[in-house]
């Protein structure tokens, strides 16, 4: 069967990328290998770890379980798009840095975007709400306590 490549336009971090994709390529594969934004990580590649979390139309989305072609026409935010244009970190990013919420950093992009999404819809989450919002993002390093604290502090600062 032919590979049937298609040209699509992906809106990533408010920039348009015209890319040639195979219909079966996931958003994760295209972001990392075609667009060149490697901040989004491939963990389990089966929708069970959250490392590949990006925001699609502001919704936390598993890029490994999304076809790139299905994301055409939607606003996609990756971790690279979170800081300001002047490089100023988003409050969630700043809080993660300042509060020891990063060890190896592999879960961090997905974790930060899930947290950002939470604070956008709930500016004053309690601990249980934070845990629920981040429940789809696994971390093998930190034991989560400082991640939760970082989100709590970001909520105050934001």
């Amino acid at each position: 069967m032919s590979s049937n490549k298609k040209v699509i336009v992906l809106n990533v971090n408010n920039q348009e990328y015209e890319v040639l994709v195979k219909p079966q390529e996931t958003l994760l594969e295209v972001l990392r290998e075609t667009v060149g934004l490697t901040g989004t990580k491939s963990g389990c590649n089966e929708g069970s770890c959250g490392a590949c979390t990006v925001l699609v139309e502001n919704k936390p989305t598993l890029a490994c379980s999304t076809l790139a072609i299905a994301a055409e026409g939607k606003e996609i935010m990756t971790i690279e798009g979170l800081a300001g244009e002047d490089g100023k970190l988003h409050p969630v990013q700043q809080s993660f840095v300042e509060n020891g919420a990063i060890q190896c950093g592999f879960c961090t992009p997905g974790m930060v975007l899930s947290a950002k999404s939470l604070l956008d819809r709930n500016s004053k989450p309690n601990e249980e709400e934070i845990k629920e919002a981040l429940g789809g993002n696994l971390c093998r390093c930190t034991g989560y306590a400082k991640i939760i604290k970082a989100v709590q502090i970001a909520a105050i600062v934001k």
Partner: protein
Amino acid sequence: MTLPALEYYRPQTLKEGLTLLKEQAGKVRPLAGGTDLLNNMKVGLNPAEVLVDLTGIETLSVIECSVDKQIIAGGTATIWNLIHQPEVKKSLTALYQAGIGVGAVQHQQMGTLGGNLCQDTRCWFYNQTRHWRKSHPLCYKTGGDQCLVMKKSERCHAAYCSDLAPALIAYGATIKLSSLESERIIPLAEFYTGEGKTPTNIKPGEIISEITIPQSAWKTKSAYIKLRSRKSIDFPQAGVAVVVSEEGGLVMDVSLALTALESGPVLAKGIGEIFRGLKTEDLDAGKISALAQECAAIAIKNVLPVANMSYRPSYRRQMVGVLIEETLKKIFVQ
């Protein structure tokens, strides 16, 4: 693990989508959230040469939800959008608790009602990579002539693990199945075959286009509890949904449905008779415990959990009574 080569279509109308499903019959699958289908396809399960993305059909994602009216949700309405409708958390508690138990926030925001109800059944011997599965004979579900778990059985015992299904069944929900030629509306409870290889009676070319929760659901009290290893991501090892209708301080009816213990959700028969006419004010923790055991004795007779997931079948069977007791306590005591 990458997806196999495929063609992709994204119709904008239901008719367009159903036409594609008919024209491409034999090599096509409908795609919605993709969290179940795409990850199965990566390991060589649920093969398809063509995917028809239904999420471009706006009418399929609409939710009509007003208090004291029947709720009608389109097949590609997301789990998140349904459970976060106003008043659902307070009044349709089993639905809310089932929905927030599905995977994690990402799965709830991506996943659709139709996709969740049509999800494939699961088994240790099935949900593995091609490489792993080569080390075992084919089973019923992969084209063989045996169950690798229940060696003498004549059917597949893969487990059906939807959280939403038992809650919706306990509310008495119906679904509309649409194809290019016809539509049919059936109780959700009748959608499932009880067999693991083909767990639903969906016909080629059909999709779930609507899910309807009856108006009576607003007047019920309900709860759903899921047995799982972790507080997110995991499928259920067992799940119980209970829906109670009361009037004038008396219990009028109780529906109890189970998930993850069989190849389909199971609506336990005869539960209503145990409760009918009881005064709700009399239902303290002690009485509920005894009633839960009575319910569990009935429920367990209808399920045969097998050794195809993390927890032992005997433990999952034992936990049915515990889950029932916890859901009843949530409804009557807390």
